[in-house]
Structures are given as structure tokens and as C-alpha cells.
């Protein structure tokens, strides 16, 4: 997503993002995953209707299964986003990017580990509100950083 940046925002490019931007981006990602779970539910229902039109009934799924499905989808979604461009759709909206401390992007295994940690311990995000370097628990474990990046290319880490 390419958005015009005002002069003051231009100076913030590459700096570590704060808790508010990161919380909003993660909220959007969570909504995306919830929408994906709902989509999967309706897709399964549609397949069932096509297979058994007469005996069709809405599938009854337990909250545990739905939660498990959502948790798996969240890990997959975050892993693919971070390993590919360093940003999920929520981070793209807020103009954020997850970068490695030493490399331009995240390798797949580090993206998967970070996504798993985020899914298991989402409250670790709020450590960035306390950390003077705006680092969450996951950033400390996987050694990643979330920066402002409105452009399509990677900014220089500051």
C-alpha cells in the first residue's frame, strides 16, 4: 500500500513503531482471521449442501474447534505475511513492517516462531509500551523489530 507521507511522517520512516500503531495493526489482523474462520465455516457448509442438499443442516462446531481453527489460521497468516514482505494486511494498513535486526526480512522459521509466540502469548505485545526500544516479548525472543515503513521498499533501520 503506497500512501503519501507528510514531511514530518517522512522523518519517522524506519523508526521503531509504538504500542498504539502495533495494537491497531494486530487488531486488524485478528479481524482478518475471524473473517477467515467465518469464511471457512460457510465454505464447509456450502460443500455439505452440495453433497447432501436434502439432508442439509448447518454444521455444529464446538468453540474449541473454532478456536483451534482460528489459532492455526492466525499462525499461518502471520507466518506467510512476515516471511514474504515483512507485513501482514493490518501492518500494511498502519504502515508498519517487521524486520530482522540484522537482515532485510525474516526467514520463514523466524517468522513461524514469532507467529506462534504471538498466537500463544498475545499479551506479550504490551511489553512494547514499557520497553524503551518499543520491543514486545516476541521481538525480544526472536530478535525482530517493528518499524514505520510507508513505502514499498525496506527503509534503513535506525
Amino acid at each position, binding site marked *: 500500500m503506497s500512501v503519501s507521507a507528510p514531511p514530518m*511522517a517522512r522523518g*519517522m520512516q524506519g*523508526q521503531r513503531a*509504538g504500542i498504539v500503531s502495533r495494537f*491497531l495493526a494486530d487488531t486488524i489482523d485478528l479481524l482478518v482471521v475471524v473473517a477467515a474462520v467465518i469464511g471457512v465455516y460457510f465454505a464447509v457448509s456450502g460443500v455439505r449442501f452440495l453433497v447432501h442438499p436434502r439432508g442439509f443442516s448447518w454444521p455444529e462446531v464446538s468453540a474449541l474447534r473454532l478456536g483451534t481453527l482460528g489459532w492455526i489460521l492466525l499462525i499461518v497468516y502471520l507466518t506467510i505475511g512476515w516471511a514474504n514482505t515483512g507485513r501482514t494486511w493490518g501492518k500494511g494498513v*498502519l504502515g508498519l513492517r517487521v524486520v530482522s535486526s540484522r537482515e532485510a526480512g525474516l526467514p520463514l522459521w523466524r517468522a513461524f516462531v514469532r507467529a506462534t509466540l504471538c498466537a500463544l502469548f498475545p499479551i506479550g505485545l504490551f511489553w512494547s*509500551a514499557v520497553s*524503551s526500544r518499543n520491543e514486545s516479548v516476541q521481538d525480544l525472543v526472536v530478535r525482530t523489530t517493528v518499524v514505520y515503513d510507508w*513505502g514499498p521498499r525496506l527503509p534503513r533501520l535506525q
Partner: protein
Amino acid sequence: MGTPSERPTVDEGAVSPERFGKVVPLRVAAQPPPPLEQLVEQSFRIAIGMTALASEVLAEAVARTLGREPYAEGEAPRDETARPATGVPLVAGAAIGVALEGARWGARAATTVVRSAELFLSLLTSPGFVQEPLRQAGDRLGALDGRWREQRPRDEEAAASFLRLLVPQIVDAALDQIDLNELVAERIELDRVVDRLDLDRVIDRLDINAIVARIDIDRILERIDVRALVERVPVDEIVSRLDLDAIVASVDLDQVVRRVDVQAVADRIDLQALVRRLDLTAIAGEVIEELELVKLIQDAVGSMTNETVGGIRVQSMNADRAISRLRERLLGRGGADDPAATPPNAPIEPAADGPVEPEPRERP
């Protein structure tokens, strides 16, 4: 019996209705037979007149056989009484006058002789020996008269049959010799005839409905070549003469629209059939292609999204900076490791102009 000038003639008696004065008789009794001298005189007049007419017609016919008109064109026939006759006509006229007068005096003399003879005969027939033969002779004559009266209807019927056969042939022969059209044109003033016609009365007597009912309209319409009829109408010329602006201006469109039952018109429209006949896909494609709708939507959504997202990003950046400053104050640290180098009192303003891409920078 008076002088000839005092006696009324047959002509005068026939044409003078004034002889009865102003009193109209209910029934006129049978006229007594005219005197013999008047009969003789009238007979002579008729004979002389017919002879004169016959001679004139004969002379005219002879002139036509010679290939010339008896009178020059535009010249009226001669008026015999307009100028005094001379020569042979004068002598002939005098002879006719003498004959007429002689006939009149002869008739008077004959009348006197007849009346004297009647008196003498009455004296002769008064004795009885004379009466009987006379009576027998009268009876014989009466029988003969009765036989004639008895046969008279058959004789008249035979004569009528003969005339019924003869008259048509004579009339046909006469009509063959006469040009009736020319005769009517010469003899009849058609203007006077038409003036005397009461056309309104004639029209009143016509049963127009009955006449129209007898007309086979369908057969007439079948024989009419409407296409040829329409092709003969100079439509362009008629249209060019029409002042359509004036016609339209004279129409009260509001009243016309008020009288139109729009609901009924809409009910009669088969919208389904109409829509089925439309190639909506092609039309929509053409419209979209014409409007460049996709590009329009992309531009609009992109512009709106960019503005919205830009605002959210700037607001979240300001919030991040505010929380960061609050954190540093609470922890009692300076701004050395503040990730935002911008002073706390310098908020980031949203973009006001076109898109400005951040300068690409490669990470070390």
C-alpha cells in the same frame, strides 16, 4: 246571329277564361256544338296553317338536302308580319283571304238551306203514311248504329294494338333522325331548369342512410391501392408548409398529460419481454468502457483509502509519540533513546498535497 266581328271565334272561346267573369262555376255544362260556319272557317284556318307550315318545313328540308342552312348563322328566321308582302305572296294571301271569306259565307248559306230544309222536311214527314216508313228506316238505322257501338271496343282495341306497334317504330325512326343532345342544348335552357329545382327538397327526400347501407365499403377498399395513393401525396411539401411550432404551441400539453392514465400505460408495457430483448451485458460493457468505470472506481477508492489510511497512520504515530513521552516521564529517563527524534510538541500533520513517496533507502 250578328256580324262576324261580334261573334267569338273558337280560339277566343278556348283561351279566354274571362268569359265566366270572376265567378268560378262548379260544373260547366256541355258546350253546344258551334255553328256550322264557324266550323267551316276554323277548318279552313287549320288547313291553311298546316299547309303553310308543311310548305315551310318542306322548303327547309330541301335546303338541308342541298347542304346549306335555311338561315345564315346568327340570323333570325324571317318575320312574315314584319314587312308587307309583295308579288306572288301578296296574291296568294289575298286568295287565301277570299277563300276564307267565301267559305264563311258558304257555310252560312248552307246553314240557312239546312234549316229551311228541316222545316220543309218536317212538313213532309208529318202525315201518318210517311211516319211509318220513316220509323222503320229509323229502326234499321238504330240497329246498324247499335251493331257499330257493339263492335266499337274491339275496333278501338285493334286500332290501339296497331298503334302500339306502329308508334314505337315511328318514334325510333324519328329519334334516329334527331340529335337529342343538340335538341336539348338548343331548346332547353338548363339554367332555368336548375333554377326552378328545389334542391333542398330533393335532398330532404333522399334517404342517405339507405344509400350508404347499400355501399359495399369493403369491396371499395379492396380496390383502392393505398400505397399508390400515399405515394401520390406530396408529404414533403405538406410538411414544409406546416407551422409545427404554432401547432404545438396551441396544444394544451398539461391537459393532455392530465388525461393520460400513466398507470394503465405502464401496466400494458411488458417490461420483462422488453428487458429480455435487450443485450444488457453488451450495453453494460459499452457503458463501462465508455465511462472507464473501473478506472474511476479505482481512482475514487484509492484516493479515499489513501486519505483514510494516511490519517490513521498519522494519528497512530502521534499516539505512539505521546505514549513514549509519557513512559519516559514515568520512568524518569531523558529522551536519549527516544525512538522519535521529533520534539514532543511537534505533532505530525497529515498530508495536504499529492502523494510523496518516501525516499527509498537500503538497509545497511
